[in-house]
């Protein structure tokens, strides 16, 4: 195994520990926005898609794959962060207008 790959494993394990620790005490009320925010973070794969675009040759298949990868990842990223913000905005509303 290459050094890069092994240090990748180390990084993976540590990041997984961080993920577990950070999440384990979140109140149920925030589970939906948390999940949708985490989902947006998993769109980081867009970086992989963009990197793929940097060494595109002439093959049509590669072009289609990379284009689809960029598109789907962007849906995930943009949609995920936006909808999370929309939800959290609702949570922030003050309990003012009691006259409904």
């Amino acid at each position, binding site marked *: 195994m290459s050094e890069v790959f092994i240090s990748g494993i180390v990084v993976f394990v540590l990041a997984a520990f961080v993920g577990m620790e950070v999440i384990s005490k979140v109140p149920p009320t925030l589970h939906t926005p948390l999940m949708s925010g985490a989902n947006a973070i998993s769109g980081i794969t867009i970086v992989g898609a963009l990197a793929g*675009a940097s060494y595109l040759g002439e093959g049509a298949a590669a072009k289609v794959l990379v284009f689809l990868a960029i598109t789907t990842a962007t849906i995930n990223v943009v949609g995920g962060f936006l909808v999370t913000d929309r939800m959290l905005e609702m949570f922030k509303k003050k309990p003012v207008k009691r006259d409904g």
Partner: protein
Amino acid sequence: MVELLYMAAASLFIFGLKMLGSPRTARRGNMFAAAGMFLAIIVTLVNEEMLSWGMIVAGMVVGGAIGAVLALRVKMTAMPELVAAFNGFGGAASALVALAELDRNGAELPVEIAAVVAASLAVGSVTFSGSFIAFGKLQGALPGRPVALPGQHMINAVLAAAIIGLAVWGAAVGVVAPYWIIVAVALVLGVFGVLPIGGADMPVVISLLNSLSGVAASMAGFIIGNSALIIGGALVGAAGFILTVQMGEAMNRTLANVLFSGFGSAVAGAGELSDKPVNRATADDVAIALGYADSVIVVPGYGLAVAQAQHATRDLGLALEDKGVTVDYSIHPVAGRMPGHMNVLLAEADVPYEQLLDLDQSNPRFPQTDVVVIVGANDVVNPSARDDADSVIYGMPILEVDLARTVIVIKRSLSPGFAGIDNPLFYNENTMMFFSDGKAAMEDILKSVKSL
């Protein structure tokens, strides 16, 4: 330098996730995470020699537009579908990245790279097809109840084994074909994996698919040797896994049981519905019970979301508060179709955060509560889980509403919940059944309360 900037982006993800865990900081946390993503994208665009700007711009514009429209248009009741869909796109993106790398480098790979390519394709594809099956179930295009072929588990086990076999083939021989077959098999496995899972188990399924979309991204990170993907993916994978486990605990079931039991399939648990009489109530009866109570707790379930009754419910709550009644809302961890689903709906309807009680806060309160109103919930308030050791849901932590003085159940009919079992609560002396659609019921009760 690039690596360090990726690390900075990953740190923003970590801070963002952390802040998402507390109501005060959650919104800023989401922005931190988004800033991390923005940083990672900029770094990538600057660093790589981008030969295909046209494609990049096109992909990001199309994807961004679709994502933004979906995010801004979606009804809060449809949030589980949307998150499922986004999960699916994320999984697809990771699998596509792996395919593109395969197309570029060919299939003669070091064994560990071959393994992560196969893993990325398999996990990404399962996430994609599984998420869209979940989407279909949640949206109503597919039946919510478990759907399975005979011997479904065996079929799925064979498919999973086939994927492993194909991965070994790919690594050993160094040809591209097995990888494409992995994609096909994994897509089928995703469909077959989620179809047999009932609607009530969706919170677990969505959490798990969320976790898998992270794992797929992380595997893609190993392929291209990018630590931002590895870290971001691992964070989400681990966080989703923790949530999945918590949801399982909230149902007193193991993950394997949720995934493989076909729980709530009509055959397994239907039992007989009791033919004992129930106390039928009218809107006026309910209004009188509520209007003269000191304390009322509302227990919402998925039926509330289906009926879009969250605003009507909150209007009734406000009217009761005007009459001096204390109103709170008890939310079971797996109420609805994704973790925290009911909280989002009630927040949308401007119910203040402090009135939302979780399981541990609720149960000590019921014995001192005058009236509990159940809207569209069933299994999570079924006392069999506590009393009947033979029940399929025995041991599941429930909201013990039967300890309140009066219980009002708003429901279309006596049909059982997703667990497919009868609910003794409905036949109790102190239970009143109001058969109606949730939203219409709330509006009728509100009218009656106002005329008290």
